C-alpha cells in the first residue's frame, strides 16, 4: 500500500477490510471507533485506537475495580497530585514533595532480559521527570523461576545487568527491592521498577496541552522501529513459544540519552519554559498527543513529517506506535520556543516543533500535506472500553486452603531446629542478595542513608534540616495465591512495617498489580479481591494510594502466575539522622521482640523451602497491631531508644536474627519463651525485633504498653555466634549455637552458586 490512507480515502472506501483483530481489537471495539468517527478509521487512526484501547494503556478490565482506591481513599491533605497523572505527588513537609511510581516490564524482560529490564527503568524514570521532579533513586522488585531452573540464570543475569547498566549510567542509586524465586514465574518473570523523584511544591508539572497557539515539541531520541505494536501486542498477549519471534519488538535503551534528558528537563523547568509535559512510553506519539490534547484545551495539529526519524522508511502508523525510548513531548508558548531549543542544543538533544495546540476539539495529523488523523482526542485517551469481566474463585482454591501445613513434620529437637535455621538462611529467597545488589550503584548522588539489605531504602532530601524519606517495595505471591484479599493487605502490611522500623512515618502507597489473564474468571476474581483488600487496608492505615500499574496476561499457556500485588510504601523522616539500621552492631544492647507470635505457617518460607508445600491460609492480617507497632517504632527511633531494629517477615524471627547478626557482625544470645518452632519460624504480622540501648528498657516498655504492643524479652546482642535457648521451669536451657562464620557461608554462597 503505497498510497496514504487519508481521511478522504477512508470516506471514499467505507467497506475496506481493516486488520483490527491483528491489532488486538474486538469486533465491538472496532464498531465503536466507526461510530465515534462517523466513518471507518484511517490506518493511522486505527493504530492510535488500537494501542490506546489496549489493556496496557486503557486499563479496560481493571478500571471498574481500581475506582475503589479513590472511593475508599482516607481523608488526607498530603496528596498534591493524585491518581491519574504520570505519578502521584506527596507533600513530605518543609516545602518538599516526593513523587514515586512502580511499573512492570515483565514480558519484554523474558524475551530480552537486558533490554527489557533496562527500558523498564528508563520508562519509570521518565514518568518521574515528567512530573517536574529530579529522579533521586530507583528500586526494583524481581521475580524469577526456581533458582536452579535451566532458564533462570539467563533471565536473572540479563535483568540484573539491564537494571544496573541503565540505572548506574543515569546516576541513580538503587536503594532496595526484592528478589524472589518461585516456579510460578518460570516462563513469566516479574520485573517491577520503581523510581522516586523530589521537587519543591511549586515545581509540579502536569501532562496537559492548554493554550491555543502553543507549540508542541518532541525532544530526545529519534523515532525508530522499536517496540512497534509493543503496547498492544507484546505487553498484553499471552506468552507462547513463538514469542521469541517477537524479539525485535523489544525496545533498546540508551541511558546516556536519558541522563541528558534528565538534566535538560530540569534546566527547562528551572527557567519555567514548559506549559505541559509528557513522557513517551507505551504507545509513543499516539499516547502523548491524545493525552496531552485531551487534558488541555482539547485540540492539536501535528505534522508527522516533522518527527525526527532514525529510520526514514517508517510509515505514519509505525511512527504513531513506535516505542522508541528516551523521548519527551512538551507544550511551550511560542515566545519561549527559541530558548527551549537552545537548552536542548546545550545538552545535545535533538528537538523539533511538530505541532500546535488548537481549540477545535480535534486531534489532526498530517502526512505530506494530507490529513490522516482527525479524531476527538478524549475518545482515544479516556473513553476507551470498560469491561466488568466475569469472575469466580479459582476452582482449586478450596482444596488449596484446606491443605494446611499442619500436616507437615516439624523440627522436634535442637539439632533439627538448628539445621532448619541454616536451611532457610541459605534458601534462594532468604539468602543474601549481594550478588544482585553489588551490581547496582547505591552511593551516587550522595544521599543514600540506608540501602538493601536494610528493610527500607532511606534517602536524605535536605542537607540542612535532615528531612528524609524511606521506601519499601514488597509482595508475596504465595500469600496472595492462598487468599488474594489478605495477600494484598499482607504486602501492604510488610511494606508499611519496613518503612516504620527505620523510624519513618508511613505516608502513601503505590502499587504494581501482576496477574494472569483477565479473561480467566479465576484470575479476575483474584484481582478484584486483591484490589478490594488493598483499598480497605489503605483506608484502615490512613495511607492513600497515589497511583499504580496493572500488568495482566502474566501466564504460561493457561496457567497464570501466583497473583502478585507488589506494594510500595513511602514514609517520611523528619530528621533522617535518627534512622535506625537492622545491624546488630552494639554489644550489650537488650533484644526485644515486639508484637504477638501465633503459630502461622500457611504460605510460609518454611513450608516452601523444606517441603515445597503451598496450602492453608496466610498469616492473619492485623492492621490495628501494625499501626500500633509503627507508632512505637517511629517514636522509639526518634527518641534514640533503639540501636537496631528489623522487621519480621519471610522466615520469621530466625531469619531476622540471622540477617541482623550478619549485617552488624555481632551475634546474640536469645531465650525463647515458648514453642521454639513457632517462635523461630512463624510469619505472624506486626512484629519487629529491636536492640534497646542500655538505660532505655523502661522507656520502651512504657511506649509499648501505651500503644498496646506486646513485648517479649529475648536476650542480648554480643559474641560471635547466634545462641538460642529455651525458657523452662528450671531456667534457660541451651538449644543450639551457630557461629556467625557458618551462618555467613550458608547465607552468602547460594546466589553466586546459581547465578555466578
Amino acid at each position, binding site marked *: 500500500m503505497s498510497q496514504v490512507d487519508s481521511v478522504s480515502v477512508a470516506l471514499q472506501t467505507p467497506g475496506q477490510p481493516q486488520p483490527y483483530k491483528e491489532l488486538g481489537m474486538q469486533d465491538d471495539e472496532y464498531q465503536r471507533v466507526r461510530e465515534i468517527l462517523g466513518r471507518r478509521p484511517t490506518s493511522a487512526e486505527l493504530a492510535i485506537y488500537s494501542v490506546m484501547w489496549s489493556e496496557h494503556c486503557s486499563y479496560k478490565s481493571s478500571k471498574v475495580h481500581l475506582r475503589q482506591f479513590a472511593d475508599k481513599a482516607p481523608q488526607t491533605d498530603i496528596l498534591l497530585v493524585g491518581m491519574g497523572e504520570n505519578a502521584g505527588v506527596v507533600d513530605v513537609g518543609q516545602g518538599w514533595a516526593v513523587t514515586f511510581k512502580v511499573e512492570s516490564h515483565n514480558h519484554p524482560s523474558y524475551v530480552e532480559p537486558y533490554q527489557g529490564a533496562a527500558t523498564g527503568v528508563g520508562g519509570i524514570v521518565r514518568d518521574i521527570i515528567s512530573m517536574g521532579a529530579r529522579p533521586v533513586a530507583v528500586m526494583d522488585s524481581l521475580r524469577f523461576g526456581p533458582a536452579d531452573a535451566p532458564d533462570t540464570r539467563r533471565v536473572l543475569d540479563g535483568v540484573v545487568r539491564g537494571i544496573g547498566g541503565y540505572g*548506574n*549510567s543515569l546516576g541513580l542509586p538503587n536503594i532496595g527491592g526484592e528478589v524472589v524465586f518461585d516456579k510460578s514465574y518460570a516462563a513469566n518473570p516479574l520485573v517491577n521498577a520503581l523510581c522516586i523523584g523530589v521537587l519543591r511544591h511549586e515545581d509540579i508539572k502536569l501532562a496537559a496541552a492548554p493554550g491555543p497557539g502553543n507549540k508542541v515539541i518532541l525532544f530526545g531520541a529519534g523515532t525508530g522501529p522499536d517496540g512497534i505494536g509493543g503496547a498492544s501486542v507484546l505487553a498484553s498477549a499471552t506468552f507462547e513459544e513463538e514469542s521469541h519471534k517477537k524479539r525485535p519488538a523489544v525496545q533498546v535503551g540508551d541511558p*546516556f540519552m536519558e541522563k541528558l534528558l534528565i538534566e535538560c528537563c530540569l534546566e527547562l523547568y528551572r527557567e519555567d519554559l514548559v506549559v505541559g509535559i509528557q513522557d513517551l512510553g507505551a504507545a509513543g506519539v499516539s499516547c502523548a498527543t491524545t493525552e496531552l490534547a485531551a487534558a488541555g484545551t482539547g485540540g492539536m495539529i501535528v505534522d508527522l513529517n516533522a518527527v525526527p526519524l532514525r529510520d526514514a522508511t517508517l510509515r505514519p502508523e509505525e511512527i504513531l506506535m513506535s516505542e522508541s525510548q528516551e523521548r519527551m513531548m512538551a507544550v511551550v508558548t511560542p515566545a519561549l520556543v527559541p530558548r527551549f531549543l537552545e537548552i536542548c542544543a546545550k545538552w545535545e538533544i535533538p528537538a523539533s516543533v511538530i505541532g500546535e495546540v488548537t481549540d477545535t476539539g480535534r486531534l489532526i495529523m498530517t502526512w505530506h500535506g494530507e490529513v490522516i488523523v482527525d479524531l476527538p482526542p478524549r475518545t482515544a485517551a479516556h473513553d476507551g472500553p470498560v469491561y466488568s469481566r466475569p469472575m469466580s474463585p479459582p476452582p482449586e482454591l478450596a482444596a488449596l486452603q484446606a491443605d494446611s501445613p499442619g500436616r507437615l513434620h516439624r523440627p522436634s529437637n535442637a539439632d533439627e531446629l538448628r539445621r532448619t535455621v541454616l536451611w532457610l538462611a541459605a534458601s534462594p529467597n532468604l539468602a543474601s542478595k549481594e550478588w544482585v545488589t553489588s551490581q547496582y550503584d547505591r552511593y551516587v548522588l550522595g*544521599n543514600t542513608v540506608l540501602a538493601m539489605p536494610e528493610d527500607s531504602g532511606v534517602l536524605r532530601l535536605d542537607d540542612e534540616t535532615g528531612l528524609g524519606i524511606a521506601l519499601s517495595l514488597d509482595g508475596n505471591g504465595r500469600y496472595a495465591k492462598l487468599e488474594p484479599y489478605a495477600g494484598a493487605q499482607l504486602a501492604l502490611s510488610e511494606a508499611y512495617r519496613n518503612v516504620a522500623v527505620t523510624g519513618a512515618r508511613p505516608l502513601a502507597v503505590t502499587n504494581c498489580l501482576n496477574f494472569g489473564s483477565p479473561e480467566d474468571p479465576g484470575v479476575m476474581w483474584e484481582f478484584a479481591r486483591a484490589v478490594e483488600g488493598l483499598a480497605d487496608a489503605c483506608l484502615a492505615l490512613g495511607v492513600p494510594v497515589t497511583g499504580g500499574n496493572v500488568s495482566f496476561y502474566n501466564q504460561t499457556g493457561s496457567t497464570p502466575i501466583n497473583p502478585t500485588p507488589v506494594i510500595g510504601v513511602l514514609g517520611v523522616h523528619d530528621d533522617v539522622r535518627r534512622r535506625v539500621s537492622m545491624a546488630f552492631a552494639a554489644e550489650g544492647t537488650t533484644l526485644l521482640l515486639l508484637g504477638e507470635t501465633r503459630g502461622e505457617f500457611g504460605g510460609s518460607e518454611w513450608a516452601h523451602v523444606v517441603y515445597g508445600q503451598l496450602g492453608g491460609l496466610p498469616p492473619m492480617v492485623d492492621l490495628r497491631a501494625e499501626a500500633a507497632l509503627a507508632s512505637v517504632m517511629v517514636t522509639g527511633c526518634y527518641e534514640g531508644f533503639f540501636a537496631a531494629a528489623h522487621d519480621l517477615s519471610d522466615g520469621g524471627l530466625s531469619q531476622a536474627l540471622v540477617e541482623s547478626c550478619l549485617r552488624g557482625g555481632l551475634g546474640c544470645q536469645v531465650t525463647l519463651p515458648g514453642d521454639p518452632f513457632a517462635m523461630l519460624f512463624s510469619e505472624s504480622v506486626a512484629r519487629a525485633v529491636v536492640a534497646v540501648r542500655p538505660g532505655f528498657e523502661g522507656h520502651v516498655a512504657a511506649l509499648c504498653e501505651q500503644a498496646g504492643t506486646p513485648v517479649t524479652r529475648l536476650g542480648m546482642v554480643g559474641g560471635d555466634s547466634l545462641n538460642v535457648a529455651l525458657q523452662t521451669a528450671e531456667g534457660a536451657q541451651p538449644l543450639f549455637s551457630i557461629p556467625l562464620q557458618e551462618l555467613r557461608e550458608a547465607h552468602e554462597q547460594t546466589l553466586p552458586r546459581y547465578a555466578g
Partner: protein
Amino acid sequence: MSPARVGVITFPGSLDDRDAARAVRIAGAEPVPLWHADHDLQGVDAVVLPGGFSYGDYLRAGAIARFAPLMAELVPAAHAGLPVLGICNGFQVLCESHLLPGALLPNAGLHFVCRDQRLRIDNVATAWTSEYAKGQEVVVPIKNMDGCFTADAATLAELESSGRVVARYLDVNPNGSLGDIAGITNEAGNVVGLMPHPEHAVESLTGPTTDGLGFFTSIVKRLVNA
C-alpha cells in the same frame, strides 16, 4: 582569606559531579562548576574530574571526553602543575589524555562492582594524599564497570620503582587491576587518578566511613599553604 577554589568538571554523562562538589565544600574549599564545552578554567586552584559514564562510555571509557574543549585547557595547566584529581571515569579520562599512564579495562568479572573497599595509601607525597599516613588503611566505596588498571611491564615497573602507586586494594582485588593498583600519580605528584570514590566517604550519615575526606582536605591544606 578567601577559600581555595576547586573546579569540578561536568561532561555529558558525568554522574558524581555534585558529590565531588559536596566533598570539596565539606573539606572547606569552594567548589566551582566547570562545563566541558567551555574554554575557561575560571582561574581555579585545582580540578576534580568526577565519576560517571561520560558520553555513555559507548566507546572506550573516557575516550570521547578527552577531546572536550575544556580538556585542551586542562592538559597544559596540569603539565604546569595545576593539581588534578580524576575519580573513576575521571581517572579514565586522565589516562586517555595521557596525563597518567596505563589504561582501565572492563572489570575482570565483567560485572559492574559496587562495594565498600579496603585500600592502603602507599604514596602520601602527592597533592591529594598528604593528610594520610603512609601505609594507612582506609575504606572507601568503589563502583564501576571499567576499573581494571593495566599498563605494559615497563610502565608498571616504573610506577612501582618511583613510588607512583597512590593506593592499592586490600582483601579483594575487585576488578583484576595489575599490582592491586587502585590509584596512581604522575611524576610531579600533582595529577592523581583513583578508581574508588573518596567523595562517597566524607559523611558518616551516607558513607561507610569518612576516610575519603583526606583527599580533599589534603588539597585544601596545600592550597592554603601555597
